[in-house]
């Protein structure tokens, strides 16, 4: 459907486990969801959720984040999944709160836990974590518990230079 009416938005499609995933270009996501919501053949009028998946292991020039949108059509009893891929350097996507009011909180959650910036959102604050929290917990490089243990191979990451014992690489003492 999207392919026929908005071909420039669809980057590729992929089908697995009986579910279809459509990869959409970032600049067309608002147009694509509006079309899916209003088109009489689709009527995906309910926003189920929006979230992100972090893939730091991908090649550096490949996009690190998948932003996943799931919409539901009650009339046709169907769900569809749209994915926008964005890079680490430019983690911005346009907000969908004008299309679905319910996206407001889901986008805030995604910003809170992944650090994705939704351009145009009226109130993009943290929602689950405290406001002064450091970092975005659901990113794969976020250390969730325990203290980092210093070894020679990770010394730069584990200890700041002025805390390293003398003789260790990069020690300031």
């Amino acid at each position, binding site marked *: 459907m999207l392919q026929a009416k908005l071909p420039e938005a669809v980057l590729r499609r992929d089908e*697995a*486990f009986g*579910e279809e*995933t459509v990869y959409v270009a970032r600049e067309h996501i608002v147009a694509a969801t509006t079309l899916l919501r209003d088109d009489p053949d689709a009527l995906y*009028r*309910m*926003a*189920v*959720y929006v*979230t992100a*998946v*972090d893939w730091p292991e991908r090649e550096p020039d490949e996009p690190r984040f998948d932003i*996943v949108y*799931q919409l539901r059509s*009650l009339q046709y*009893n169907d*769900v569809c*999944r749209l994915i926008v891929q964005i890079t680490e350097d430019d983690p911005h996507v346009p907000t969908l709160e004008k299309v*679905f*009011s*319910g996206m*407001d*909180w*889901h986008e805030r*959650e995604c910003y809170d*836990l992944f650090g994705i910036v939704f351009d145009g959102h009226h109130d993009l604050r*943290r*929602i*689950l*974590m*405290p406001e002064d929290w450091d970092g975005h*917990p*659901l990113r794969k490089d976020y250390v*969730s518990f325990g203290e980092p243990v210093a070894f020679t191979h990770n010394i730069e990451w584990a200890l700041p230079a002025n805390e390293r014992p003398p003789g260790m690489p990069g020690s300031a003492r």
Partner: protein
Amino acid sequence: MAAILPPDLPELPPPPPDAEDPFAIARAALGVGTENDAVELVQIGDQTMELNMGPQHPSTHGVLRLVLDLDGEVVKECRPDIGFLHTGFEKSFESHTYQQCIPLTDRMDYLAPPINNFGFSLAVEKLLGVDVPPRGQYIRVIMCELARLGSHLIWFGTHALDLGATTPFLYAWREREHILDINELVSGVRMMTSFIRVGGLMADVPDEFGGMVEQVITTFPKRIDEYELLITNNPIWVERTRGLGVLTAEDCLQYGASGPMLRGSGVPYDLRKAQPYSSYDHFEFDIPIGTHGDVYDRYLVRMQEMRESVRIIEQAYRNLPGGPVNTSDRKVALPPRNEINTSMESLIHHFKLVTEGFRTPKGQIYSAVESPRGELGFYMVSDGDNTPYRCKVRAPSFSNLAALPHMVRGELIADVVAVIGSIDIVLGDVDR
């Protein structure tokens, strides 16, 4: 599908006209007109008062904090502040094997743990392509509908208590006790059962199970009649809840509100009927819907849902098939104890499952079940390892609560607790 006809009640009074006189409400209360100077009314200004409600407020049903902007007693704006119960389950999932995640899911929507287990298990089973035998599916249905009954009982008791009725609370707790006893019988635990596992169940049900379910089937319809006798036509209840917190069908879709919220607004959508999972298409039941989308209609819908749950339990129990409850795929479910004694392969499977768990094929899926609060979905991404790479929980309470500011804007502050009660939030589900 059955529409609930509201009891014979007078039509709702027309909403007050948007008066230009800022003292219209005060004048009406004092019985003075605009020409009467006996009472001098002075407008202090357009100031609103900011009132903090929660997170320790008993009527916010957990640790929900609301910041209310009040103009007199009228709510101008409501800003919910959530996250006090954020536990990071989605992060924890990523470092636990699939079977280890099951006890974590119990603690999300802690009023209906079996349904969380069920949603998670169905998602993983979809990734694995595993089928559960009919007996396992039927017992899952019975446990989930019992959980729905228990959850609705708590909603009923606390919602009525918020609005000043003490008796229903005691009744609801008494009946819920029976459901917790069944949980204890089958799993050894009263609340956080972890009874439904990936690939089937923890174990088959014991012999006493039948008698206890039989008791639910015979006593519950009478009990629900009693509750309705107390509340449904109670004039105080009707006055407090009719026409309050109205959410139209369009609003529900916009906010992603599901479950009794959506059905109270007149949309007959229930995942158990729309996309039947786990043999729900074998049972005959109706989807109750409301007409006005107000607090009272959501009350009627949930009361009727309890009756439908009893109907489903009865059908599932009467037609309970024999046979195994777990999948025969030994790579997913533990082999039976006696098989381990005789078969080397079973011993290896047991060892591998307990130490390492199973691996799922690469891919992403979304699978949803109908929880007492609405659509509980799991979006799961697997990279082929024995832990979920990413598991997003689409919590029904989260989306339903997002519609709260829309519902209470312009209502009186005393009615905010009634609206919160009618959403039936569980903060563990909202914050995850």
